[in-house]
């Protein structure tokens, strides 16, 4: 099962910070994952597709966009620390 994390306003839209999702044969990359999530929730799907949203797979940046069923995928809206 893949672990999907949402932060900031994306967590509000997703109704929670975390989802555990079975990724079937139809999902091989980030775009297909977002398509799957968008099926159940248009607004969340649109928010995840915004250019300002970054993704981190398995806590590494620039890890490509291939996804398997054991991955942790985090969706990050623009940060605001400090």
């Amino acid at each position, binding site marked *: 099962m893949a672990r999907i*994390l949402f*932060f*900031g*306003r994306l*967590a*509000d839209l997703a109704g929670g*910070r975390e989802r555990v999702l079975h990724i079937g044969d139809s999902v091989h990359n980030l775009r297909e994952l977002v398509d799957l999530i968008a099926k159940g929730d248009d607004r969340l799907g649109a928010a995840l597709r915004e250019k300002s949203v970054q993704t*981190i797979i398995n*806590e590494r940046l620039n890890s490509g966009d291939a996804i398997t069923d054991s991955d942790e995928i*985090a969706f*990050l*809206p*623009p*940060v*605001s*620390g*400090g």
Partner: protein
Amino acid sequence: MIRISTSTFDPGKELSAFEKNAGDAGAVVSFLGRVRGEETESAVRALYLEHYPGVTEHRLGDAEAEAHRRWAIDEPLIIHRIGDMKPGEPIVFVCVSARHRRDAFEAADFLMDYLKTKALFWKKEIRPGGDQWIEPRAQDYSDAARWNERDKDN
């Protein structure tokens, strides 16, 4: 040292402790960021901050390492609050010690620009009229871009 804190802290005490371990440093610069309060009509009643546990700390470590590469400084201290906080409470505290003051000033300034635009924190203002997630101001991005400009100069 990097500390993500779920409870409030006393910046003065942190500066005292940091300074006692600053060895032979001639200069210590600190930056304290606080929750701003009530001067506007839509007064901020509280802030809520979240981070990406593990990943946020790891990235902050990278930022500290970059500061080390750029300036002759000792190991900085970064304390960042998460969770709920009230006006007047500290959000972030950065201390940098160095032999000379220019290094300490610039490294502290650099780390704050990083914290404002790149560190993995998300901040929500709790207002009477409704909550609002905050994004960096244009000024924050242009402040952060100063360090890239400088890279090009070198």
